[in-house]
């Protein structure tokens, strides 16, 4: 049994966690819930030894855990899959999987064959078909998150902690993960599961502890608790969970085309045609890895592509993302850490950069009066912070995501292209973001959204395009249902395969 007693963490004047207590019982899965910034990751990091608590202790099997020492936590059987991952991008997949616990042979040499074998074992278990010696930096984000989980699994932990491990995963991958996790539970491990997705929590967890503003609201047995009760615990008030229904789009729009792409082709795309009108939200769905990400990147000029593109006041493909930004086409990456926030800069700078990035290099950048605009955005998006000059890396993951939205809004875009926009965002913020997307559309922006979550696509989009092997194979309009999108993704794939379209063996 693992028991946490009165764990408290202060960052200067900010109290991230104020005396949290909970216990993990072997053979159970325990959910840790809470809005963005409520202190979940802080608790997780203290379990893993990455962060040293200001006060409080952790007991593992009646023994006191030495806090602030990752090596000791690992030694005590605690393995953590961190929200922002703990991989070394320049090292290979196999080396990352066994990082820190390399088996050594005689004379202290690292047993490389053993590493490869154990890595292959874990990759097989996760059904990850990647060669074990590519550098991790070259993998797509979902594969990286699977590796982060794999890294915890290799340790055969007694206590497994998963901090939003499923946020970047596709449905099939989540299923696979759950069967592994349930297997571990049946063998007597205790699991702490952090997630914003209630269906996942109800699917595998036994009990749930809810955090609000860094304090434990309570621990409940899930079989006796409804979603609404949990949400009320999380945010302290009732909210409706109705999806943001579109103001039945098509009436206001169709007057002007914001983005028109013709036969985009490269190694991953097989001739994509695409149109986004003003005020329209277009979704991109389909099975995992069918070229969705490549399409988004091709549109902003981040990867090489042939074809034709037309936006307001510009004809032709963009040379690079900066060129796209100049024409008012903005991109929000699904990879927040590497392509999103500037972690060591302030919230203010992170938001303002959206506006000044395309102005001439020698123009005076920090003018007065812009403060007001930034403050308004921060308030509008309810970004939990204590000062505008605070470093962004000190924000919780969900709040960092909101900063990215604020930046995009500040730039007054024509077209916004989003890759998994609500990754790691809590329920109420997710609704806010959906509302925000709708209001952006209402103001005449054209939006293109790729998401791994069919519910999200159904909830917020006017149209959904289903991709398969780099082409758009279906278009869904009208009354969108998540199940229809999922079905279309699978059917699209099958009918295309039936046509004898050549299947690429391996996308890597």
């Amino acid at each position, binding site marked *: 049994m693992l028991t946490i007693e009165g764990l408290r963490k202060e960052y200067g004047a900010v109290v991230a966690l104020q005396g949290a207590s909970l216990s993990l019982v072997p053979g159970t899965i325990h959910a840790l819930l809470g809005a963005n910034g409520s202190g979940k990751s802080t608790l997780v990091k203290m379990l893993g030894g990455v962060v040293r608590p200001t006060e409080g202790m952790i007991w593992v099997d009646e023994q006191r855990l030495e806090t602030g020492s990752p090596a000791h936590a690992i030694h005590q059987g605690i393995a953590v899959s961190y929200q922002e991952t703990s991989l070394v991008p320049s090292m290979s997949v196999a080396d990352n999987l066994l990082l820190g616990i390399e088996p050594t042979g005689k004379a202290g040499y690292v047993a490389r064959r053993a590493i490869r074998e154990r890595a292959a074992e874990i990759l097989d278990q996760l059904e990850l078909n990647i060669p074990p010696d*590519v550098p991790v930096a070259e993998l797509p984000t979902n594969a990286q998150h699977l590796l982060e989980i794999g890294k915890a699994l290799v340790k055969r932990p007694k206590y497994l902690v998963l901090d939003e491990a499923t946020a970047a995963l596709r449905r099939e991958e989540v299923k696979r993960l759950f069967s592994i996790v349930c297997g571990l539970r049946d063998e007597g491990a205790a699991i702490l599961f952090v997630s914003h997705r209630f269906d996942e929590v109800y699917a595998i967890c036994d009990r749930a502890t809810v955090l609000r503003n860094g304090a434990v609201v309570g621990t409940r047995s899930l079989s006796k608790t409804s979603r609404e009760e949990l949400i009320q615990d999380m945010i302290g008030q009732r909210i409706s969970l109705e999806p943001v229904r579109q103001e039945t789009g098509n009436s206001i729009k169709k007057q002007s085309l914001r983005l028109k792409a013709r036969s985009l082709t490269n190694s991953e795309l097989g001739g994509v045609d695409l149109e986004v009108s003003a005020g329209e939200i277009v979704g991109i769905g389909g099975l995992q890895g069918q070229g969705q990400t490549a399409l*988004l990147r091709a549109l902003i000029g981040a990867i090489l592509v042939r074809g034709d593109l037309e936006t307001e006041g510009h004809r032709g493909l963009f040379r690079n993302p900066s060129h796209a930004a100049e024409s008012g086409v903005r991109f929000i990456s699904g990879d927040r850490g590497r392509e999103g926030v500037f972690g060591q800069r302030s919230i203010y700078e992170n938001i303002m950069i959206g506006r000044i990035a395309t102005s001439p290099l020698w123009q005076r950048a920090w003018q007065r009066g812009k403060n007001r605009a930034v403050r308004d955005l921060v308030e509008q998006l309810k970004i939990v912070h204590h000062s505008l000059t605070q470093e962004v890396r000190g924000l919780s993951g969900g709040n960092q995501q909101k900063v990215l939205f604020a930046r995009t809004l500040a730039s007054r875009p024509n077209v916004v292209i989003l890759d998994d926009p609500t990754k790691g965002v809590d329920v109420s913020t997710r609704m806010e973001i959906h509302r925000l997307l709708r209001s952006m559309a209402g103001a005449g922006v054209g939006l293109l959204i790729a998401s791994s979550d069919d519910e999200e696509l159904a909830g917020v989009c006017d149209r959904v395009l289903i991709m398969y092997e780099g082409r758009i194979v279906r278009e869904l309009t009208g009354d969108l249902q998540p199940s229809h999108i999922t079905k279309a993704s699978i059917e699209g794939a099958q009918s295309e395969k039936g046509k004898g379209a050549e299947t690429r063996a391996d996308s890597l």
Partner: protein
Amino acid sequence: MRTRFSSNQTATRIFRSPAMIGWVLFLLGLVANAIVQPTLFKLSVINSNLGLAAPLVMVAIGQTAAVLAGGIDLSVGAIVTLTNVLVVSLCSFHHTGFWLAAILGVAAGIAVGVVNGFIISIVRIPALLVTFAMMSIINGVALAILPQPGGQIPADIYQIYGNTVAGLPFPLLLIIVGVLLWVVFRYRKIGRYLIAVGGAAGSSRANGIPVTKVRFQSYVLSAMFASLAGLFLTAEVSSGDPLIGASYALNSLAAVVLGGTALAGGRGSVSGSVGGALFLILVQNIVYFANVPSYYQTLVSGLIVVMGLATTGVLYARSGKWRLTNGR
């Protein structure tokens, strides 16, 4: 699904590996050198070239350890000098036996690394500043020990250095010993951890790697190789000189970068650095034998090195690590 893995991919990976650049440059340099200097492959010429190369190769190996771990060591040249003046002055003015002097000289060099490592990893002052300051301090100490060039080491020592052993040039053996010494570290945990810490210190810590210790050891390793280089150089020139190591700090960094190691740390290899170091030696040869007027020699060799570095940079960018690539 089985995890498949084709040999084709291995081949691509090796070819795309940044270390390749160092060796390709070396081969190009070798061809160019052979053209301007037809006697290049005579044993005595090879011998004297390798004699020049051995110290730089050693310093470059050590520098690679520091750079891989995300740091930099500007004091290596000063350490080379320190070992040189200590060994020579102990031998010639204090009548110490050569081997004892050698051990003391290397130990003094390693001690400098220990101080560097302590200040950088525990006191946490940036490596650039610490090793730069250490460079001046140690150069000052070297001047105090041996104010003027001079002194001598026993004749039998420097005669071995110019000879062959079992048909192989002695300096080549030294280079091989240096590389083997590195292999001892590379394939232990420390070798991996240097790369892990340089690649992502936070992640390394979360995985239980003793980051402070690894950083500390990287400077000790760097100093150890530098002082061995000082010893080799002493055997080669057979006398002492308080300015002898001045060029090694920047040349070793050039070798490291030419060999495809990222200055930001976490990526690279010693094999590349060895190629890079040999290339730098060849460049000096080429410029000399191509009858470049002596006024222009540094200019021309500088240009060649810049071209080499540019190739490294271009190939690096081509390998695509820093484009927006997470979506594939």
